[in-house]
């Protein structure tokens, strides 16, 4: 932000510093039936993920003889939001499945698992913004917990721009802000070691010369999230 531009968003509604993320709790092994599972709570957003596989991909014509396939299924529980949502697939959840598959697939050593499929199920128990990011964080942990070979970890966060202020880990209340330039939501995922981006979406409006700042904020937040994911996975060993 240049000095002559004052932002209307000077204080976060929950009192956090602009670059701080909400309190996180993470745990693996929460679904005994699954090959790997994790719960990831980021403030009031809670995601649970389970992994089944790798297993033979049926029907056979969907098999890839070169490498394994990751299938993501994201869904919100009907009572996770204030206005009940009907269970089942929506256009929104289909898109989230796709971008989550893209966010996760590259780190899994799928070339070592030809002809197989890995099912990743994500369910949101309680929603307060950033559910796809919490879902990715839980799913990446569940994959690691299942012992599936991965090159690195994936961590995700929603960066926001509230009027002219860049903030990390946006809440629902912030998402709904309308003053000034309004709210911009930029969910992103970073890899733990190469620090590359595997999820990037944006809705709202942001100046091109502020985009780098948003990415830096995301990278920094994901580093913190990665440490928590790593700790929870180590605790389970």
């Amino acid at each position, binding site marked *: 932000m240049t000095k002559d531009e004052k932002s209307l968003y000077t204080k976060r509604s929950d009192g956090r510093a602009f670059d701080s993320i909400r309190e996180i709790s993470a745990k693996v092994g*929460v*679904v*005994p*039936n*699954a*090959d790997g599972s994790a719960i990831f709570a980021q403030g*009031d957003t*809670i995601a*649970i*993920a*389970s992994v*089944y*596989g*790798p*297993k033979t991909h049926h029907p056979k014509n969907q098999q890839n003889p070169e490498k394994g396939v990751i299938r993501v*299924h994201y*869904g919100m*529980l*009907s*009572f*996770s*939001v*204030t*206005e*009940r949502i009907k*269970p089942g*697939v929506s256009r929104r959840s289909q898109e989230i499945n796709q971008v989550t598959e893209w966010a996760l697939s590259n780190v899994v050593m799928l070339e070592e698992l030809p002809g197989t499929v890995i*099912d990743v*199920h*994500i*369910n949101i*128990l*309680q*929603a*307060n913004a950033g559910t796809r990011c919490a879902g990715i964080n839980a799913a990446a942990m569940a994959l690691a917990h299942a012992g599936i070979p991965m090159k690195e970890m994936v961590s995700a966060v929603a960066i926001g721009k509230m009027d002219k202020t860049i903030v990390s880990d946006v809440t629902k209340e912030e998402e709904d802000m309308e003053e000034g330039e309004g709210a911009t939501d930029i969910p992103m995922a970073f890899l733990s070691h190469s620090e590359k981006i595997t999820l990037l979406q944006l809705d709202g409006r942001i100046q091109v010369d502020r985009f780098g700042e948003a990415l830096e904020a995301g990278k920094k937040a994901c580093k913190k999230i990665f440490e928590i994911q790593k700790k929870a996975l180590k605790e389970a060993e």
Partner: protein
Amino acid sequence: MRIRMPYKLTKKNILEAMSKGKRLDGRGLLEHRPIEVRFGVSKNAESSVIVKWGKTEVACGIKMGLQEPYTGHESEGTMTTSVELLPLSSPNFEYGQPSIEAVEIARVIDRGIRESRFIDFEKLCIKEGEKVWSIYIDIATINDDGNLIDAGALAAVLALRTARFPVLDEETGKIDYGNFTDKALPLVNENMPLTTTCYKIGNHIFIDPAREEEDVADARLTIEIFKPESQKVEMITAMQKGGEMPLSIEEAEKMVSEATKMFKKLNILVEEELDKAKKDTKKKKKE
């Protein structure tokens, strides 16, 4: 990769253990697994609860809406019960249309709550013939290790007992979503139904099956019981027999007697958990 034990072998092992009065996990035939309750899964729900019953885990949330009353029931609110067998919770559950298993569980749970008159539907009327409250009871599985009917039914009752109305905006006549009153649902607590399903395998009768036991059972009988003050003994309010194998009169009576015993145990558990939850909210309010 998981390998499921062949059906016949599982059944043989289970029968062998049962003839010695034991289960594969060491329990007696009429012994249930430990039950744990945790309230407040989703702050956005009118109430929510997780019931952990052995390794089985289910979440239940109550949401409320507004609708026109049904014809012939102009002054009564409505209730809808749904069960989602999440693929997250078991390799045997799939996406798509709800399976007959999910539909049956939801209908059996729904019937117990409806027929016992646990909910006073007349008190859910806002304007006769025009507008009434609707209650959605949504149950989702987190981990399946059998006995989903009883676990789901218990979760539903606990969620109903802790639910509070959302705020109704007087001007617009719409629900102010996300804001709640302190007002509890119009429940008749002495009509609270508690559900026990008894299973039969060979000549043995048992309760609370693990998944592998449930899969090989020959028949089951779900019994929903309540105890109104005006009655000397417990009342049956809903039943459902499942499975092809017939039951003898003696077996059916034995099952009802076991379900009655279980009703008493569950009743104590429910009141204890609700007491604990009340104290916890008081504590939180003080903080």
